[in-house]
């Protein structure tokens, strides 16, 4: 299983060099791959973190319905702060895709 996953990853990483080797520079095709993978990792880990935060906030709201409004405000602020880390990755990915500072 692990060996086939490694093989799949190698194939994916090797495709740009096969497809675009004639052009010379490999940074453009690889930056597209990297942007996609970076966003995938960031979204997954951000979802894990946000899920933990929301789970404990909902737990707290169920225990203390009177404090629900305050907990909800704190939860939304916390979610924004967690989400901003994924947004940084999104900005980096967009810079790689659109601005292309390194060619």
């Amino acid at each position, binding site marked *: 299983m692990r060996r086939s996953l490694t093989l799949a990853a190698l194939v994916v990483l090797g495709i740009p060099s096969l497809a675009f080797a004639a052009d010379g520079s490999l940074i453009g095709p690889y930056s597209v791959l990297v942007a996609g993978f970076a966003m995938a990792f960031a979204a997954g880990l951000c979802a894990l973190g946000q899920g933990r935060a929301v789970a404990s906030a909902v737990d707290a709201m169920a225990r203390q319905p009177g404090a629900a409004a*305050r907990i909800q*405000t704190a939860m*939304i*602020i916390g979610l924004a702060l967690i*989400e901003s880390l994924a*947004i*940084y990755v999104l900005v980096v990915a967009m810079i790689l895709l659109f601005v292309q500072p390194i060619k």
Partner: protein
Amino acid sequence: MDVIEHPPIFRLPGIPDHVTYTWLAMIILAGLAFVASRNVALVPRGVQNFMEVVLEQFQQMIDDVIGHEGRRYLPLIATLGLFILVANLLGLVPGMNGPTTNLNTNAACALVVFAAYHWIGVRKQGAVTYLQHFMGPVPLALKPLMFVIEIISHLARPLSLTLRLFGNMFGGHILLAIIFFLMGLQGLIGWALSGSGIGAVVGGIGGAVMIAFTVGFLYPLKILVSFLQAFIFVMLSMLYISGAIEEAEHHGGEHQPAHH
């Protein structure tokens, strides 16, 4: 990339699009304020009633976060919130451009917040006391290190305010553009119209699903995100202002030995 950067319908020559639509947002807000305050009545009706409800919500948030003394910052915070909300929603109107999808508009808003909360802190506590707080409740030898770290963390605040709003808005627009234009209109509908038999069936059904998904799910989601991002921007600004005001109390305990 032409599909993703669909240009707005109305453009002024020689002026960037985000500036044009910032002016449009300003005109909308100023017109709303003018209509609301033209005939101020004791029992509000119509637009005045609506604006009063909106501003009372802002006042309620300020009371919750900053406290009662925060009401004097209502003009700053409500203006920022309403402008960002209108700018976010302008980007969702077909044929228009959202000013907040450009980094410059967001940076301007964030720098206003940055300057304002430092100015409020200096005014409330005096420059020396305010700067002393940057060193935190740590032993004397660690104070220069804390100072540098605090400066960096304060400089990161406008950066994160800017990038959060920009990333959410621009990312959402790219998502809309890809799913609606690239996959829906150009991809699947284009396939359906290309003349092939299987394309007419699969492309027609797929394109209809894409467009229904965009209109039924992504658009409401984007409206929700617009409100949420305006709320978060305003809420973080209020937190920064309340931090700048409340630091006086922490400062009193700073001279005691740090035993915890």
